[in-house]
């Protein structure tokens, strides 16, 4: 299986090129920042963004679920982008069909900043919601990357990315996992998401998503972890 094996707080996990983290012992696939309905939110505001992104995101999610055999999906916040997108009928219908075909899958949303404005997902999607931090020892599930005394934090929110600078001034921008001593920050899952900035701290390890692979990067080669 392509991906990088990591040991976080004594738990073996896999960092996957599908922008997800898999925790085998709990059979849990963990993702962050899906921003469902973002394109629909733009359309509701009169900005004609083409549809199609949601389907592609769901296909990638399915690939990760299938590959890992996960029975649980944990979303570390920002499931829906905004209230308008959450209410968009075409997006909801697509998500509803997807959910109906996967009734065995347990889904937990740890609310993020966008979720507070968008509201909880419609009950039909059967998504359990909890405020951050949610404890799932040894992990503490957060949206904002906030360290915790009670466990190892898994978070999102920052949409971390890196810019690699190589010979001949060649540059590549890649989404990445930021693995810290007490926290791992996941890349944004949604395809139609901007990318934020992470200042690599000493001791951070960066795992970039390169097509279908995960590659560990030397932080010294990374010029500002902004994408």
């Amino acid at each position: 299986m392509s991906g990088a094996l990591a040991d976080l707080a004594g738990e073996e996990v896999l960092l996957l090129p599908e922008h997800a983290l898999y925790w085998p012992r709990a059979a849990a696939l963990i993702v962050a920042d899906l921003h469902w309905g973002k394109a629909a939110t733009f359309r509701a505001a009169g900005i004609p963004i083409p549809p199609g992104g949601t389907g592609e995101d769901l296909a990638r999610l399915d690939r990760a679920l299938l590959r890992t055999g996960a029975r649980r999906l944990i979303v570390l916040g920002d499931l829906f982008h905004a209230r308008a997108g959450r209410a968009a009928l075409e997006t909801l219908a697509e998500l509803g069909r997807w959910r109906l075909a996967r009734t065995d899958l347990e889904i937990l949303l740890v609310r993020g900043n966008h979720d507070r404005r968008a509201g909880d997902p419609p009950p039909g999607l059967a998504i359990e919601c909890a405020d951050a931090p949610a404890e799932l020892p040894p992990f503490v599930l957060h949206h904002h990357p906030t360290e915790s005394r009670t466990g190892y934090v898994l978070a999102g929110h920052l949409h971390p990315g890196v810019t690699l600078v190589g010979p001949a001034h060649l540059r590549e921008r890649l989404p990445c996992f930021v693995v810290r001593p007490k926290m791992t920050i996941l890349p944004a899952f949604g395809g139609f998401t901007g990318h934020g900035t992470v200042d690599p701290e000493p001791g951070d390890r960066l795992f970039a998503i390169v097509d279908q692979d995960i590659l560990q990067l030397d932080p010294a080669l990374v010029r500002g972890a902004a994408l």
Partner: protein
Amino acid sequence: MAISPILAASVRRKLDEARRGIFNGAEMAAVRPILETQARWSVLPASDELLVERVRTREGHHLFFYPVEGRLVHEGLAALFAYRIAQLAPISFTLAANDYGLELLSPEAVPLDEALEAGLFSSANLLHDIPASLNAAELARRQFREIARVAGLVFQGYPGLAKSVKQVQASSELLYDVFARYDPDNLLLFQAHREVLERQLEQSRLGHALERISGGRIVVQEVERPTPLAFALLVDRAREQVSSEKLSDRVRRMAAPLERAAGHIHFGRGGHRGFRSGG
């Protein structure tokens, strides 16, 4: 503002005069030491010659071309040359252009002889090669910024309106990617391509420049260090990229030192502070 075709032709004539030791007027007298250094380190091109300089530095393998046709034409030529060379073998370039010339910089040596033989300067197939090179260098993606704003895709909010529009903001690059992926026939994308072709690349001038180049002599100079003509291109950091290598191959070259370390890591077990690596 890039120089006009008439001014470009005059600059070529002045360079040719300098080559023959003629330095008329205060301006030419002022640049004389620089042009003489250029002649010593490389050559000054005659008006029917295209000078190509190859030089290797710590940054990589540089190819400098000096058609003296103005920056807009050079941006187009840089993308076109990079695209054509990249068709011969997997290679990656960054591009620079100014009013005098253009630069292709790559980590590996460029198969220049092969490229010249394959018709690097040919004005044939331009209708195919120019749009393909625009795509390769993502020039339309850059042009899309302006179009996205005019079309109202990038919404800055109304003046004086306090209500947040944060949830409907996205960068023009992200929008370009979304359109290119899910609505490739969108008229706004078409507009971006057309604007680059018409305004930025001045397609007819590009064709004329190629005809002029192919009608003259090509002078390839191996130089020991970047020459005075090369200098302004060398320090240009706002570079487009063209690559025929796979993303993973490009990244692997940049990230080579740590590649073997990937795969197995241990963090934060049992209150242990810091990292532990290993199997």
